[in-house]
């Protein structure tokens, strides 16, 4: 095909840069290229359009146009319209959000949620103004949130926060980690003895008395709320955020441990990973709720929620370890060799060279694990914690509203979809941002 009339010829080396062919502009062109480019494509597109035409109106009618948004009970809803009865969800919205958290204390949950949103912004948005000082806030957030949600003595919390802040500052100043660790442990033990009352040394009758009774300072006390009352989306977020925050670092350590040259470390990690992966999460949750108290010394009571958090985190960590291991193996051996040759020791070489690349490769799989963990949090229903599905099931038992299964599950599904889709989008954004080669 030669139409030399339109295509000018150039001397070798004189060909100017030209814009790419005019191909991907205009709606019609886009349609032709993407929907109707081949016979198969045309058939599939037409089928899809027909399917949407048949299904979409019904779905929209049920969810929106014929739906009732107000009403006293099921019958009032159905009398009004034939669609969904969102009035039910409206009435139960607070229950779905807070579980049975006491009405008067719910501001604490809201405040904790606000802090979570702020922490996420600081962590995830790299150009956030004042990011460095705000990172301190993020580090203290878990403690503050736990205090807000559970309640208790505020002075103790402040003391604990101060200790942590001091340790963080020491680390930031660049003291050797061993030194900081010794200081931290000493400070923790001293703080425990001085402020938090005494404790009994293990395996002996020696009792150490506390010096200051903090309970007399009750201005800062928040009313204690039993974790049995936690429920709904709040519970999902607590389990999800805790699991996500801890499973990644634990998973990284397990993955590194599995590659270690030290046989004890290596096999401990292998056994842990394989055991946890080989057992269903539900079994672990049952173990958490009943068996653990047999294994632990008599008298030690562990809050059920904390046991669940530990189990969910460990479960996700085992998966995370394998995901990270895959990433580690994908990093070329030459990378750690170059780091070795430059004189970097093991930890700096891992932290600065190998892990950033391994984690970047594993982003899709890591987020996949996060999403799985987040959704698995609904399994806590089997040991009696009231996650959104549990609340939904309880609500369905209400005779005033019975039979509204679709509304409840659709509502819960939308909540999960929004959070999981947000995670998926963020992971895509992150992959793009970390891409440092030639952009396609």
């Amino acid at each position, binding site marked *: 095909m030669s139409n030399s009339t339109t295509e000018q010829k150039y001397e070798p080396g004189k060909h100017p840069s030209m814009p790419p062919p005019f191909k991907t502009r205009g709606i019609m062109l886009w349609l032709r290229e993407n929907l109707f480019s081949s016979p198969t494509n045309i058939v599939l597109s037409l089928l899809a359009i027909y399917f949407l035409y048949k299904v979409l109106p019904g779905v929209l009618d049920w969810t929106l146009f014929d739906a009732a948004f107000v009403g006293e009970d099921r019958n009032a809803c159905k009398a009004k319209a034939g669609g969904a009865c969102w009035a039910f969800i409206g009435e139960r919205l607070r229950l779905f959000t807070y579980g049975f958290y006491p009405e008067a204390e719910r501001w604490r949950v809201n405040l904790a949620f606000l802090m979570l949103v702020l922490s996420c912004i600081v962590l995830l948005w790299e150009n956030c103004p004042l990011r460095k000082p705000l990172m301190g806030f993020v580090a203290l957030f878990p403690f503050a949130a736990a205090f807000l949600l559970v309640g208790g003595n505020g002075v103790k919390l402040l003391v604990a926060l101060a200790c942590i802040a001091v340790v963080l500052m020491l680390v930031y100043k660049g003291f050797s980690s061993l030194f900081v660790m010794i200081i931290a442990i000493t400070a923790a033990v001293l703080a425990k003895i001085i402020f938090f009352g005494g404790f009994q040394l293990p395996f002996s009758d020696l009792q150490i008395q506390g010096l200051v009774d903090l309970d007399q300072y009750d201005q800062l006390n928040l009313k204690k709320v039993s974790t049995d009352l936690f429920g709904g989306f709040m519970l999902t977020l607590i389990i999800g955020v805790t699991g996500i925050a801890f499973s990644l670092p634990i998973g990284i350590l397990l993955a590194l441990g599995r590659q270690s040259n030290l046989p004890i470390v290596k096999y401990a990690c292998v056994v842990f990973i394989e055991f946890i992966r080989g057992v269903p999460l539900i079994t672990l949750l049952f173990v958490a709720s009943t068996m653990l108290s047999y294994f632990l010394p008599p008298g030690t009571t562990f809050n059920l929620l904390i046991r669940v958090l530990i189990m969910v985190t460990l479960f996700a960590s085992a998966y995370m370890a394998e995901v990270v291991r895959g990433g580690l193996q994908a990093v*070329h051996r*030459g*990378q750690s*060799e*170059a*780091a*070795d*040759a*430059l*004189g*970097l*020791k093991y930890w*700096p070489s891992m932290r*600065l*060279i190998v892990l*950033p*690349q391994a984690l*970047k490769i594993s982003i899709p799989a890591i987020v996949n694990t996060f999403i799985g963990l987040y959704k698995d949090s609904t399994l806590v229903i089997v040991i009696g914690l009231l996650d959104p599905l549990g609340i939904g099931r309880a609500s369905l038992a209400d005779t005033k509203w019975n039979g509204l299964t679709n509304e409840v599950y659709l509502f819960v599904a939308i909540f999960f979809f929004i959070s999981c889709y947000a995670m998926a989008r963020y992971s895509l954004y992150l992959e793009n941002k*970390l891409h*440092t*080669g*030639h952009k396609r």
Partner: protein
Amino acid sequence: MNNTENNISATGRALGDSTIEIREMHKWYGEFHVLRDINLDVKSGERIVVCGPSGSGKSTMIRCINRLEEHQKGDIIVDGVELTNDLKNIEAVRREVGMVFQHFNLFPHLTVLENCTLAPIWVRKQPKAEAEATAMKYLERVKIPDQALKYPGQLSGGQQQRVAIARSLCMSPKVMLFDEPTSALDPEMIKEVLDVMIELAEEGMTMICVTHEMGFAKTVADRVIFMDEGQIIEENEPEQFFNNPQSERTQLFLSQILAH
């Protein structure tokens, strides 16, 4: 060290004491005996080219010098430090020995400048500003200061290898090891890397270079070492080595590579 008086190299320069001493070194990969009775003395300021057919153990030998590979028998002493299982010694040696790899092994997630400042900051504990100034100095020497803020993936192979050389130089090493630095390059980029290496050699850097670039060997080497099947077969000044090779194996090798 028993060698106190200065030696004179093939090119007439004064050479210092031994920087690297390898004595009766052997290495096995499992059952396979890769390196057999290697003896090598490298004086400070000396430039050594190692050549030989592939699989002859050249790379393995120089990788033993900074302990990327472990030797099982014999001694390797670098800059007065003996390489043993002691991590302290290994780290001390690696701080003083720079290495340039066949496939560059730049860190793709860091900019060129960050590649160069990483080790000075984390190993030598230099302040960032100082490390960056040094890095820019060496990037200028390898003639790519304008690429400092790009990522390695955006550079050509020749540029990447020059960055890798600059990255090693930023640690001010006493010895530079080159492991086939031009083998992965397109022909037109080989020269720009060799030019940098020749310049480095002329400034008196102690170098051990595994390469098939015989032109480079003739120009700068004080000694050429020929290896085959894990042994050092022949060791001579470049002129003698190329014009009057002693062993039959060397003659065969030279006739094969110089025929092209």
